[in-house]
């Protein structure tokens, strides 16, 4: 304690360090007050303010990296280091005191961040889950990460002179900043994705995702094991350097402790690089943003293959999902025809098949080709096939912090040869089972699970549907006018249950007798058009607002949504329609100008005729003509 108080005095009596720290803390306060005023004027959710606060993580890390260098360099610079090295514990003790001081200085910054988050007007202090998440995020991103930076700076102070130390630290900062992501994207783009250096930079990525993109409400800020592994890796890297310098060279610990740290570093690195489900909305080509366009563009360079419906039906699914770092699943499917020579299923290539067995547990021969698996009966009667598989998709995540497995994504085997990705949507295809099937679903995720199926007494979920959607994370459910809505509650602005009534009423008016009773608002992870999907018992949407429009979209072919928007704008918002027409004048010649074509047809044939035929065309799912073909055919004698 005496050593610490004198070390602290050393800091308080060092005007340059004291002033620099004071200026930094003052800046932090000013920035947070400004953000608080700016954000609160729009009354955005508390989570947005938390995200803004966490953006300081990089700046804090940069500050403490250099600050700690100067703090720890002092003993070296004044010539005390050698003197202390000749004592039994002096060097270690001084270093320990300085580390404690550094930790306290970093903690003061983290507490500042926490304080402003607690006084933010929109925060609900009774919301334990949110407060726990916010506190963990602040601990991790505003304390642990900057402290790690500080210890790396301390390590640099022990090994490097100022110029080389500053160069190393600057290089570290650049590699850990979003600039590294931009660099890797540039390289990948320039080499047509032949070279992607992004994985090399992953271990440097210590900061919250909102440096690159808006965080996902349903998921929160990532605190997944990979984040801890990366931070602890660097913490132990710093530890190796510090122990090598601080421990007396003659002690046995000097050999064992750094070796122990090095072994831990290797373990953490191995764990970090183990396959795991993450969300990465940065510009990396294999991330969530482009998922899985790069893969399928390369795979189906010569065109997407034709789909083949199955010549059998699945009569019952028994899904067992275990969510850890990724999805571990077994899917037992009962078949209606046991005598076929083979059974083709679609299962996303993201999931690695481990076992395929028959009803008696004996293995079945199978061939896996990308998203498809053909299981051979080899002359046996196969009434049931059990698939055991593991993996994760870069968009549809399944990890310890959340689950997003929509029913239209082939995370369980779907009969037939389907395309998992839709080239026209530039997104995932909306694959549903051809008929309703009995499902029994068991999920072990360590978190509350939301699904379209009904909970059973044994903790599983059961029901009859043509697709099972599984969600977990920061979701809540509310029932309005008999419709159960599951929504990401961090987004308090959009999903205020009191304000959902109007939307649900509109939705009920539109859906009429449709038996859909559940709306699952899925996380916004750049799905685009594929987030709104109707199933026999539920539908998924990216927001609870304008559910009626979302519902209508599910009743038409995807590509017709553009014309639907145009027609609606023409009827209800002419200014927007005129803007679209004007905007199309700037389109390159090869791009079809639907809005302009519609406008010209209305001018030529009259509003009533064109809009009436457009309505019929939009909701006729047997009419596969493109929008351009339909508009072109309008007014022709033989038009359909």
């Amino acid at each position, binding site marked *: 304690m005496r050593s610490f108080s*004198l070390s602290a005095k050393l800091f308080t009596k*060092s005007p340059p360090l004291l002033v620099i720290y004071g200026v930094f803390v003052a800046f932090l306060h000013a920035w947070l007050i400004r953000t608080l005023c700016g954000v609160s004027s729009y009354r955005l959710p508390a989570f947005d303010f938390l995200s803004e606060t966490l953006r300081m993580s990089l700046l804090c890390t940069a500050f403490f990296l250099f600050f700690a260098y100067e703090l720890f360099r002092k003993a070296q610079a004044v010539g005390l280091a050698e003197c202390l090295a000749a004592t*039994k*514990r002096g060097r270690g003790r001084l270093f320990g005191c300085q580390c404690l001081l550094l930790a306290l200085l970093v903690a003061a910054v983290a507490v500042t961040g926490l304080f402003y988050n607690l006084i933010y007007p929109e925060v609900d202090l009774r919301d334990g889950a949110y407060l726990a998440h916010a506190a963990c995020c602040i601990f991790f991103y505003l304390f642990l990460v900057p402290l790690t930076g500080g210890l790396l700076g301390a390590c640099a102070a022990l090994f490097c002179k100022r110029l080389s130390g500053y160069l190393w630290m600057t290089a570290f900062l650049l590699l850990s900043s979003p600039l590294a992501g931009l660099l890797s994207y540039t390289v990948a783009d320039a080499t047509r994705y032949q070279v992607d250096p992004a994985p090399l930079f992953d271990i440097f990525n210590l900061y919250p995702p909102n440096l690159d993109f808006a965080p996902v409400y349903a998921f929160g800020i990532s605190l997944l094991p990979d984040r801890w592994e990366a931070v602890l890796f660097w913490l132990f890297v710093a530890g190796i350097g510090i122990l090598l310098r601080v421990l007396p060279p003659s002690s046995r610990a000097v050999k064992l402790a750094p070796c122990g740290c090095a072994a831990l570093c290797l373990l953490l690195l191995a764990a970090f690089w183990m396959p795991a489900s993450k969300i990465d909305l940065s510009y990396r080509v294999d991330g969530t943003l482009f998922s899985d366009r790069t893969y399928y563009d390369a795979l189906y360079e010569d065109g997407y293959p034709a789909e083949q419906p199955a010549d059998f039906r699945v009569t019952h699914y028994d899904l067992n999902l275990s969510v850890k770092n990724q999805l571990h699943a077994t899917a037992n499917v009962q078949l209606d025809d046991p005598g076929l020579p083979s059974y083709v299923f679609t299962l996303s290539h993201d999931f690695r098949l481990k076992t395929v067995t028959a009803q008696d547990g004996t293995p079945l021969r199978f061939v896996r080709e990308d998203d498809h698996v053909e299981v051979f009966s080899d002359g046996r009667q196969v009434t049931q096939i059990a698939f055991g598989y593991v993996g994760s998709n870069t968009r549809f995540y399944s990890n310890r912090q959340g689950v997003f497995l929509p029913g239209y994504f082939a995370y369980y085997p779907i009969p037939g040869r389907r395309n998992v990705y839709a080239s026209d949507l530039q997104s995932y295809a909306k694959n549903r089972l051809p008929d309703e099937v009995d499902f029994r679903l068991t999920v072990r995720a360590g978190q509350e699970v939301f699904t379209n199926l009904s909970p059973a007494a044994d903790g599983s979920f059961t029901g009859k549907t043509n697709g099972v959607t599984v969600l977990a994370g920061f979701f809540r459910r509310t029932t309005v006018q008999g419709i159960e809505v599951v929504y990401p509650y961090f987004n308090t602005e959009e999903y205020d249950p009191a304000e959902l009534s109007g939307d649900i009423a509109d939705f009920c008016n539109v859906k009429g007798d449709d038996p859909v009773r559940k709306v699952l608002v899925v996380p916004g992870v750049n799905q685009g058009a594929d987030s709104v999907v109707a199933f026999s018992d539920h539908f998924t949407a990216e927001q609870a607002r304008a559910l009626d429009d979302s519902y209508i979209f599910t009743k038409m072919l995807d590509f017709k949504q553009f014309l639907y928007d145009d027609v609606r704008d023409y009827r209800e918002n002419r200014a927007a329609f005129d803007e679209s027409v004007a905007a199309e004048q700037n389109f390159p010649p090869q791009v079809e100008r639907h809005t302009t074509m519609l406008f010209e047809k209305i001018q030529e044939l009259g509003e009533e005729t064109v809009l009436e035929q457009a309505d019929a065309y939009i909701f006729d799912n047997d009419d596969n003509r493109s929008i351009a073909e339909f508009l072109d055919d309008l007014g022709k004698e033989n038009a359909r």
Partner: protein
Amino acid sequence: MLTIQNLDKSFGKRRVLAGFSYAFGSGVYGLLGPNGAGKTTLLRCLTQIYPTKPGAILYGDKPIARDGNYLAAVGYLPQKFGLFKELKVGEALRLLAALKDVDPAKAKRRVEECLELVALRDRMQARVGTLSGGMIRRLGIAQALLADPQILLFDEPTAGLDPEERLRFQTILSEIKSGRTVLLSTHIVEDVEACCDAVLVLKDGAVAASGSCAELAARAEGKTWLVPEAEASAVVGESVLQRRFEAQDGQVMLKILARAPQPFPRAEPRVEDGYLCVLKGI
């Protein structure tokens, strides 16, 4: 008290200590040697800043590499020494006392005693940054004494000091040496002559000669000559120029070291003459 047996230390291909052996008892030992002879390396080995083989250095009968308490018995003043200039002298020493495990109850008194010994008691409330170079060296001695060690290791303690500070250092040393083993690494022969009970001449990482100052001086007995510069051509055989000086009569004289008898008057041999004879193999 401190026995060194066949100590080797290399840095890469460069062998700095080559089979160094010596047994130190109580008293002040001067380590003389040219730059690179291994003086600092020897002291760093003795402080275990440079690890050594177990058994190469014994404190009492225990190898220091395995003696957890050995460093508590060592006070060390390295060549480059400084303290946090923002702290007051008393605070800086109290910090070091805490780092050196000095009993907290006695630390304040011990700090005052050590400052008294090095004649800095009156500067206790002064900031370290206001002290002169000589005072900083004295402060270095004070910090080395804080834990009341049995072994004191001083690396070039008088380098760069003015004559008054050097004399003060010699006085301090005479006050603190009692019952202790003090190793004084220096290339200033006068300091050795003034303070040391014994002297070791290091050459190429080993002890080239050892003994009392008188014994070292005796190495130059019959080999030290005073030659008028004008008659330098008359020197017989190989010789080493020790010094050139102006005599009282204004004649420029050379003090040379030569094994062969010379037709010139002999000079009284001194420690530095003996030291040069050892180094030059005369």
